[in-house]
């Protein structure tokens, strides 16, 4: 198994440094991501204003796409702005996996129980 506690290629976080040219490339990437995130936000706003909530399948699709777009935004913010994408693979897993598992479970339980309460309210309330 690979040891992940040894500093390899001077890649210790405190020594993380780059030159001006690398800086230009990195800044370009950051600007592209910014434009992308803004575009997604504008799309979400447009969808939010244009598509009204109702019980149809169209609305359920819209809701799902809101969630998906938000997750995409979150992924870009975490991996690129917070530089988690540049960190060691193990760190990525340590941060993301427990959270993902817990949140998925929490959401499942939340919705399941919530719908159950609604059902009970409708039947007996």
């Amino acid at each position, binding site marked *: 198994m690979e040891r992940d506690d040894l500093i390899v290629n001077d890649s*210790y976080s405190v020594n*993380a440094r780059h030159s001006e040219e690398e800086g230009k490339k990195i800044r370009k990437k950051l600007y592209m991501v910014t434009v992308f995130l803004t575009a997604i*936000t504008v799309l979400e706003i447009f969808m939010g204003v244009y598509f009204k909530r109702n019980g149809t399948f169209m609305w359920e699709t819209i809701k799902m796409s809101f969630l998906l777009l938000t997750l995409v935004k979150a992924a870009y913010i975490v991996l690129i*702005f917070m530089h988690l994408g540049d*960190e060691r693979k193990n*760190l990525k897993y340590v941060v993301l996996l427990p959270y993902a598992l817990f949140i998925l479970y929490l959401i499942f339980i939340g919705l399941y129980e919530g719908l159950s*309460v609604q059902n009970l*309210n409708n039947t007996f309330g």
Partner: protein
Amino acid sequence: MSGHAEALSKEQLWSGGKSPFSISYGKMMMWYFLVSDALTFGGLLTAYGVIRHASADPWPVGEQVFESLPMLHGSYPLIYVALMTFILIISSVTMVLAVEAGHRMDKKGVIKWMGYTFLGGVFFLGSQAWEWSHFIHGSGGGFQLSAPITVNASDDHGGDVSMSLNAGNWVHMTSDLGHAYEHALEHGDKVEIANGQMMITSHASHDDHGHGGHGHEADAHAMASTTTAYPLELVLNKYTLEHKDGKDYRKLTVSGAEAEKLMKTMAPNTVVFGANLKKNEYAVQQQYANFFFFITGFHGFHVLQGVIINLIVFLMAYRGVFEKRGHYEMVEKVGLFWHFVDLVWVFVFTFFYLV
């Protein structure tokens, strides 16, 4: 080459002489803190989801509740919150540019970008404060009906709809009417409903006897008073959506004689304007407002913490503390916190305002 340990100074490595993930202790702990805070916010948003899905009544629609801009009348659904989201994302970008400048040991760059980030944060906080203030102030208030009633309303296309309402159903007032009514109730003015209008008679607050009267008119009124008439304009489904007869009905206006009928069926102790610690005008489910304040408030509190920490680090960079240290890792660490704040907002925005 791989598996070969670097000899780094002791204060950089953790106490064991090694460093998991090649990351400094401070950064690792910041990540752990962010995961724990993310769990907190995740829990809050999930609680919101549970209460919302458990409710049998229609839940308020984001673009109907949040549709005002400061100092403007009219309906601008979600525009202000979109602006807030944009400001926060841009401040996140300026933050990551500050981090990038720190990696090049570019002190001027760090100061410039941290400064912009600080300003973005302050703007966001100010905007959120306005949102709260407007939410608390209300958009005209509402009341509940004391008995079932059927009225004719018109939708935004001018079509007519017959609405059958039950006792306890909410009826809202338009902004102008509601504010006048609120004012009248506060001042104890006389309120009369007739001819499809609300007549409010306010008493002047100065002395009874007019000094140096103007002929015979001075005797006619012992106390000067003015009566203003406001056309009755009420709104059904102001904040919600109703699916009926295969169509969606929102913001149905009731005016004239029909509105008079509604006003006369008002249960007077249910009148509420805006939001206070006891009641709010926004939903049958009073928790809607509670969640708004709690979630956006908790988030705003984090923004405030971030703004303060950013200011401190800005000043440290300005004074050259990091130049002396040889690295700008502190900028990176507070950057992580600031990005986290932005990330939470992205989720709050989606779950509260959009969905």
